[in-house]
């Protein structure tokens, strides 16, 4: 520090840039990074070389070879004729699916329980705290096994399925729901739905400007509901309801038709959601409690209704405390989804690092690719959450 000051206060003297501590810092950091990259590369090459000399095949050519095995669930068309490269994509998408759905449901459930813990109703608050204390103290793997082996597997066999209105069926092979089949014109309904969303965004901006300028309020909520839901529904009926449903039906051993949600996905999703929600609930509770009580009182003194105060004053301030730890819960959830392999959900670890690795034996390449996937998922999530955090941060006017 002191040298820094000395340089700054000394009269400007012509000296080599190398003496500038900042420049020097950059040079050393660049050198360090270059060294680390070189070091990693040498290790990688060395490993591959050693493996080659022991007769172990290396390289990425295997990605073009036919896989020869089937996968339980795939979001893209896949058969055993496809390549190992495609098994990578199938596994990746299955991981993204369960992580995405998990984050969505865990956030909703976590917020509800976090707010419930602060409820003035004794029963609601107690139920919420029992939930949090139980779920976050039981290892996640046990919870996954509980849902899978204790709850879903004992369901009846397909021939004795539990039947909801002959449209939805539950059995030990999964949950079967009717599949929507698009008719002519459904595209238009979807386009209008998205136009409704865009329209609402503009409307919200316009309404805010108008309120700032004139103080007049606009019923934003109802108007956007009308745009996003009402308009598409009207279009749907004007076009003659262009949507039919394909019902699941028992044929041979299993149900055919409809959409099938496999029990492995349901169990994993339930476990990830309820487990992570217990942590999110604590984060939300802490966030709300961190907002000084004076804020609530000040709002009341200004005559602002409690619900409005919560929405406009408490939650925005609480969010600043909530978002950073929330991000790390999202990252945990994404990484925890790799426990899928324990119950046979075909995520990237099970399909790619499991079966593909075993059939090809190319451990180093496959493990590196799988690690890369988790790294990219985590970095994307953090990037997005940091951006959101910035947009929520205190703006000084």
């Amino acid at each position, binding site marked *: 520090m002191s040298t820094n000051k000395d340089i700054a206060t000394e009269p400007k003297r012509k000296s080599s840039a190398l003496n500038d501590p900042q420049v020097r810092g950059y040079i050393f950091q660049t050198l360090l990074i270059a060294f680390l990259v070189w070091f990693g590369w040498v290790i990688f090459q060395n490993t591959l070389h050693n493996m080659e000399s*022991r007769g172990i*095949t290396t390289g990425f050519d295997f990605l073009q070879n036919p896989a*020869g095995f*089937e996968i339980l669930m795939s979001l893209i068309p896949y058969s055993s004729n496809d390549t190992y490269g495609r098994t990578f994509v199938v596994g990746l998408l299955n991981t993204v699916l369960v992580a995405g759905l998990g984050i969505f449901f865990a956030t909703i459930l976590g917020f509800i329980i976090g707010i419930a813990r602060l409820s003035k109703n004794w029963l609601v608050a107690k139920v919420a705290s029992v939930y949090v204390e139980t779920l976050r103290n039981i290892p996640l793997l046990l919870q996954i096994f509980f849902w899978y082996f204790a709850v879903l597997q004992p369901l009846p066999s397909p021939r004795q399925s539990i039947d909801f209105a002959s449209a939805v069926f539950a059995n030990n092979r999964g949950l079967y729901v009717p599949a929507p089949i698009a008719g002519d014109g459904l595209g238009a309904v979807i386009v209008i739905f998205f136009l409704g969303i865009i329209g609402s965004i503009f409307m919200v901006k316009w309404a805010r400007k108008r309120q700032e300028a004139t103080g007049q309020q606009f019923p934003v909520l109802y108007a956007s509901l009308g745009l996003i839901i009402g308009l598409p529904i009207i279009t749907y009926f004007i076009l003659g309801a262009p949507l039919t449903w394909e019902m699941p039906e028992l044929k041979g051993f*299993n149900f055919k038709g409809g959409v099938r949600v496999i029990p492995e996905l349901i169990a994993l999703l339930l476990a990830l959601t309820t487990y992570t929600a217990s942590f999110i609930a604590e984060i939300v509770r802490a966030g709300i409690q961190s907002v000084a009580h004076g804020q609530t009182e000040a709002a009341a003194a200004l005559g602002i209704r409690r619900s409005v105060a919560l929405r406009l004053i408490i939650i925005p301030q609480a969010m600043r405390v909530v978002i950073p730890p929330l991000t790390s819960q999202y990252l945990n959830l994404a990484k925890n989804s790799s426990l899928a392999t324990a119950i046979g959900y075909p995520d990237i670890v099970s399909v790619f690092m*499991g*079966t593909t690795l075993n*059939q090809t*034996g190319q451990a180093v390449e496959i493990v590196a690719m799988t690690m890369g996937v988790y790294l990219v998922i985590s970095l994307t999530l953090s990037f997005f959450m940091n951006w959101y955090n910035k947009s929520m941060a205190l703006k000084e006017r």
Partner: protein
Amino acid sequence: MKKRMSVLTGALVATAVSATAAMAGTLDDVKARGELLCGVSTGLPGFSLPDDKGNWTGLDVDTCRAIAAAVLGDAKKVKFTPLTAKERFTALQSGEIDVLSRNTTWTHTRDTSLGVNFTGVNYYDGQGFMVQKALGVKSALELDGASVCIQAGTTTELNLADYFKLNGMKFSPVVYDTSDQTVSGFASGRCDILTSDQSQLYALRSKLDDPSKAEVLPEVISKEPLGPLVRQGDDAWFNIVKWTLFAQINAEELGVTSANVDTMLKSENPNVQRLLGTSGDAGAKLGLGANWAYEAIKQVGNYGEMFDRNVGPKTPLQISRGLNALWTKGGLQYAPPLR
């Protein structure tokens, strides 16, 4: 900085060197350690199963015990490492075990690209199907649309896809990591079928609460030669593992058993003399003592004894010799001559 760099480069060179050093000398390692490290399955009745005291029994287990007897003179000096199908090759490649003896099928890909060598076949098998009797299925060709429980990282996964594709049928695979999970998936009704090598189907069926509720279909859809394997690049060790099994098969052919091996030491038959080391230097050529095969046969038995004790008609698995009979009795078990 410079100093640190040279330390790191030194470490790198050291890893590179030690990696090549680990390639040879398994025999010396085993002798120095006084113990054979053997990879087996996590629990498959008849092949490798620990009892409640941690004693392992089974055909794959005995295959390792015979090697320990030949090399160390004591069939008990084996440390067994239970491995799932997914873990087994890495365990062998990384040097965690000396031999993998875990109902592993000898295939072209495994032999050519994993850096391992199969040393022989201790059980000729083929893939089959087990179904719940209640389904009333009598042939594998009636299985269109079925859910199938399988274990990850096996040849089973590949054969299954081929078989259904060839016969124009569809199926949905439910893939688990361990055989216990696979059995539980089948028992709970998550799957209609469990598929695996036939010998393992009988073994897994004996693990069910009520084995009589399940039945094994007649079809055999693949060739599964199961046998021990070692790391590629250590030919001396490869020869020892290979010839221990051959010695046991030759012993059966020559009528040498654990019960009569001591009297056989006086045999006039030159084949028996070479086997038991009373003449010739078969042991020395392997880098072992003259009594290498004697110890293996005395302590573990010949191939037939090993088979009968673990999976034969008098065991719960009740498997007949079939393909695993000696070539002289219409089977495939045939060992090159010991001379």
